[in-house]
């Protein structure tokens, strides 16, 4: 018996033993007939059914405006009081860096993930740059790339202040 044949024989006995254990499993005994063909067709039907239900569930999630477990980007308005002009503050619960522009007092929120491979970039106050700890990408205060490997600017959020809560939505302002 050559090595390949021995391997095949071993695999065959394993598969047979596994199928037999499945067929003799009490749950399957109730669901399917012991005949091989009907066992297989029933299994295929159950698998197709499970796939169908999963797809239907995914479509349901998509259509139902369910957030899908993703956290909403919200934080209390009081956090804004801590802001020093032109110095970004990291807000982990919103996955964002926010700062107040000294020029016109407007608020800017940048996503805290590097556009290269998604590491969280850190603000370096000495160099006035965001630095990514993973591959050394650098972004300036407005989110523009100063050094690669990242090629896209940090996405900016739209800020909505309502009832003492700041909410960041989508990426309505395209990265410049």
């Amino acid at each position, binding site marked *: 018996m050559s090595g390949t044949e021995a391997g095949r024989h071993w695999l065959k006995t394993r598969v047979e033993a596994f199928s037999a254990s499945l067929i003799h499993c009490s749950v399957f005994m109730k669901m399917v007939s012991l005949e091989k063909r009907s066992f297989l067709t029933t299994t295929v039907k159950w698998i197709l059914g499970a796939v169908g239900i999963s797809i239907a569930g995914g479509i349901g999630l998509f*259509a139902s405006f369910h957030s899908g477990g993703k956290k909403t980007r919200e934080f209390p308005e009081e956090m804004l009081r801590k802001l020093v002009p032109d110095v970004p503050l990291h807000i982990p619960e919103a996955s964002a860096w926010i700062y107040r522009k000294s020029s016109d007092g407007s608020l800017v929120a940048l996503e805290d993930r590097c556009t290269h491979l998604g590491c969280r970039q850190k603000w370096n106050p000495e160099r006035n740059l965001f630095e990514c700890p993973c591959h050394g990408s650098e972004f300036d205060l407005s989110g523009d790339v100063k050094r690669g490997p990242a090629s896209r600017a940090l996405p900016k959020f739209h800020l909505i202040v309502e009832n003492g809560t700041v909410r960041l939505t989508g990426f309505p302002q395209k990265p410049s």
Partner: protein
Amino acid sequence: MSAKGSFSALLLHVHPHSIPEESSGLRFTWCLGGLALWFFLIETVTGLLLLLRYVPTLSAAYLSIQDITHIAPYGFFIRNVHYWAGQAMVVVVVLHMIRVFITHSFRSPREFNWIIGMLLLVFTVLVDFTGYILVWDDRSFWAWTIARNLAETIPIAGSIFAGLFFGPAEAGDFNLIRIYVWHVVLLPGLMAGLMAWHFWRVRKDGISRPL
């Protein structure tokens, strides 16, 4: 007849009673017309899903697409399948036309079906173009502006045609809704009708080989 039996009968009725043996295998010509139909079906299914979360107004269109891409569960997947199947459909339809041309399949008795095919090519490009507009980012805005200005240069009926296809001259919600209606209802509806006609002619004129 049982429900299952009548469904099988319907499927059998859709299929031709016989096909050339050589067309049943995988060939270098890839059954490109069939692929185009397949992409059209993918576009229909994913497009119906995108309808559930897209808002065709100037202020909300881009936001709703960002919502689909970044927030909606499986949204990025549905949008990307819709986008790439759309691009692939244009490529496949053009290749299908080239194949029909190279194999002389446009000659009698199939010259009328060639005309229907040309119309389908035009509608495929238009439906691709209108989809590009619906994103309503800067590229969409300028594509819309340039295309509308081009349409206005058509002699005599230019301004009427531009208004008919693109909506009023100033950018507003009516423009996007007009493009939306073309993309979602009118063009796919026209295409579905023409495709039915196209396939019926293939059956009547005889299938051209290689597929």
